[in-house]
């Protein structure tokens, strides 16, 4: 049986803003492919080139060089056909503040040519799925941040796209809203929709994605399944040292290294130096965060740097 056409194929994609000498190289000669029906994570710190890549793949920015195909169609020549078959959720919830939740969904469907007799039914179905039925006639501007995010995603799905681009979908959301959106992404996978997800939340990528590309400083460092990435850190061991924090509570520090004994010794020495009492020492399986630290050479704190101030 012939292989299905990949959802996304990217070869040598580059974006430079400004002059070739002094301009900003936002995306540098990246290659990757996204399979049909998978949740593909594009993981990297702020400013790594994630959003620029999405903007190029959705026609909002023209690549400086390189090629990309979406659903087998050439980005440079078939953009209008591609646009009909994709849905995009930008980082900021950007529906029309003056229109109600229902009318925003209807307008999205009008633009994408959803038949008239389907629109109202589909809008009500989406409002129900995203638990916004009681907000049907409320203007978008008056919704809470979580509801705005949910409605923005609903609008991107209204025309039943085959590929959905989600740019930092949970940034700025409270924990409950973020959990709801993760359930939505999991639901899309079940429906066979391809999801291209950018995030700088490691745990989010670990929980949702089938495969992950790590992008750092405009270049893809590695691309693998979540388990594959973790396996690369298997040569190392993670040691968690729990100690008192001197204020009646406890504090857990995590160290990742190749030598377990050296790691434990270093952790104990550090605790002793700081005058903390060690309560427990555990070796644990490396996580995606450990793999990220090993593969990129960056601190996990770089990824935790917030853009929008999310409530944990």
């Amino acid at each position, binding site marked *: 049986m012939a292989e299905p056409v990949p959802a996304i194929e990217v070869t040598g994609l580059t974006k430079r803003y400004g002059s070739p000498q002094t301009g900003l190289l936002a995306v540098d000669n990246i290659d990757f492919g996204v399979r049909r029906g998978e949740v593909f994570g594009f993981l990297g710190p702020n400013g790594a080139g994630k959003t620029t890549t999405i903007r190029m793949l*959705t*026609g*909002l*920015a*023209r690549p400086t060089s390189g090629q990309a195909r979406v659903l087998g169609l050439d980005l440079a020549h078939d953009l*209008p*056909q591609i*646009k*009909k078959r994709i849905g*995009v959720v*930008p980082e*900021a919830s*950007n*529906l*029309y*503040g*003056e*229109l109600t939740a229902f*009318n925003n969904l209807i*307008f*999205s469907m*009008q*633009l*994408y*040519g959803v038949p008239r007799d389907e629109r109202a039914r589909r809008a009500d179905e989406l409002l129900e799925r995203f638990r916004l039925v009681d907000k049907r006639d409320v203007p978008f501007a008056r919704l809470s941040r979580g509801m705005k995010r949910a409605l923005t995603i609903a*609008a991107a799905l209204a025309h039943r796209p085959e590929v959905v681009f989600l740019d930092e979908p949970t940034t700025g959301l409270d924990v409950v809203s973020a959990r709801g959106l993760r359930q939505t992404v999991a639901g899309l996978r079940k429906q066979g929709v391809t999801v291209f997800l950018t995030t700088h939340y490691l745990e989010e990528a670990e929980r949702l994605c089938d495969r992950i590309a790590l992008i750092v400083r405009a270049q893809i460092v590695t691309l693998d399944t979540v388990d594959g990435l973790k396996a690369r850190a298997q040569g190392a061991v993670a040691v968690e040292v729990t100690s008192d924090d001197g204020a009646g509570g406890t504090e857990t520090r995590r160290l990742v290294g190749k030598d377990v004994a050296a790691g434990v010794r270093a952790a104990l020495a550090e605790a002793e130096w700081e005058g903390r009492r060690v309560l427990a020492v555990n070796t644990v399986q490396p996580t995606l965060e450990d793999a990220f630290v090993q593969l990129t050479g960056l601190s996990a704190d770089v990824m935790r740097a917030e853009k929008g101030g999310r409530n944990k």
Partner: protein
Amino acid sequence: MLSDDLRGIWYIMLKDLRAYYFKPPNISWGILFPFAFVLAFVIRDAENLDSLVPGLLALTLLFGTSSMEAIVITFERRIGALERLLLAPLRLPALLAGKLLGGMVFGLVTTLVVLIVALVVFGASGVNWLLLILGMILSATAFSAMGVLVSVSVKEVFEAQTLANAFRFPMMFLGGVFVPVTLLPLGLQVVARVLPLTYAVEVLHAAMAGGELPLAILDLAVLSAFAVVFFGFASWVLARQVA
């Protein structure tokens, strides 16, 4: 692709009219504005008010089409909503055409109210209806295209207002609304000839008070040219921004 563009134009226009234009403050301001001008002239000199009607109609078209038009795109860009249209399956000129039509329809509706009042007060005898309709539509198109160009050329809403006024206010005084262009000093007459309002006033004057038909047809042609140039330039500017 054409059907996608036409559908996009239509629904963007309807959305803009619903979301921005046909709001009570806009309607009342759009209609009150020209009457405020009339009142100013009545207070000064109640004679020959009928000669002001073509100019006031042109002025209503200018402000009715371009006031919101000049800020709608800037505003949507500011809140990120313009991206939704850029992501939709339609070409950039179709997106701008939808925006242009919104301003045009609003300008024509407000002007229609002023026209009806003028016809009731001064009568409709001698009106060249075809010329009047063509003149109003082409003037609205040119002014709305000017609004679109202003809107894509700036980043902030207040910049859009400033730039729009930089075009509109010289037009108001040099475009023949209050003083015939022929009575202006020669230098200002030359300036008046590069302003679209001058041609709008001329053609509406010809339609309502009689005038040379060939000159009126030339006015229509010049208004069309203004519309094409403004719209083409706006499309070019937006395309460069997306790149």
